[in-house]
């Protein structure tokens, strides 16, 4: 995966970058399966590797496939991302060890979730749809808003196009 990311950074051909990011998403999905997060892995494989690759290819179809040379040296963005990564790694060192059953997060609301009072075998579904129904309603609304925004942005452009054709 590291090799993939480095290749994506240095490649100038956007088509190969899109394909590599699809492969990266698939590898990420296998990592998530290894972490027992099958639901997230499914989403990553379908969205990251499938739909978003198609959308990026569709976007590439509309523009040039070779990345332009950057006008400035990327020192400031590089410094920002390196320091953010350093902060995140520093923060991750304070996390409890992976699969530590004694950590605080497993003693707050998790026991109640696992009692399974809604009688749905898949705890992820139970938490998403029932215990945190409001959150999921909000997420669905966000997805809806994204779709509505895309419609609003792109359809106006289409109307302008026809308006120009009519000579307005």
């Amino acid at each position, binding site marked *: 995966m590291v090799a993939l990311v480095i290749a994506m950074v240095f490649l100038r051909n956007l088509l190969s970058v899109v394909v590599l990011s699809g492969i990266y998403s698939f590898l990420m999905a296998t990592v998530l399966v290894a972490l027992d997060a*099958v*639901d997230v892995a*499914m*989403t990553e494989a*379908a*969205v990251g590797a*499938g*739909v978003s690759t*198609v*959308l990026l*290819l*569709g*976007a*590439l*179809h*509309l523009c040039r496939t070779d990345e332009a040379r950057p006008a400035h040296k990327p020192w400031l963005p590089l410094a920002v991302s390196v320091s953010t990564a350093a902060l995140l790694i520093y923060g991750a060192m304070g996390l409890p060890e992976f699969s530590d059953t004694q950590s605080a997060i497993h003693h707050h609301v998790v026991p109640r979730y696992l009692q399974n009072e*809604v*009688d*749905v*075998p*898949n705890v*992820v*579904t*139970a938490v*998403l*749809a*029932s215990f945190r*129904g*409001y959150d*999921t*309603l909000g*997420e*669905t*609304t966000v*997805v*809806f808003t*994204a*779709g*509505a925004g*895309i*419609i609003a942005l*792109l*359809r106006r452009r289409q109307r302008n196009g026809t308006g120009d054709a009519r000579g307005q």
Partner: protein
Amino acid sequence: MVNDLVLRVVGKLLIPFILLFALYVQFHGDFGPGGGFQAGVIFAAGIVFYALIFGLVNARKVVPDWFVESMLACGVLIYAGVGFAGIVLGGNYLDYFVLDSDPLHGQHRGIFWVEVGVAITVCGVMLKIFYMFASRGHADGPGGV
């Protein structure tokens, strides 16, 4: 890609199974991995696959634009409607226990309809974004690359 025999045959073979798998992920989400979001994306991916092989024009005949746009809103409305059904039946907003005389059945019913709402909205948004981007290039969409 419209004239590629291998792709057409494989696509015709595979697309029904992709859609069926999406429905499986949707309705089996209570028991195994999956749920509304995943099912919606997989369903949309199946139709995007169809559009790539048979062309955007044909895909628009199968799943027309007005249908996709109404899917967008219907999903959220179904989700919010489940919440209001809870209020009407005497509970709180998004309270599933009151949806059936047996509280556990009520939970199942609530989760089922909520997942249906999520799947419809997600599928609609994915398809709409794909249609919007694909129709801006050639009529054939990115499949013509």
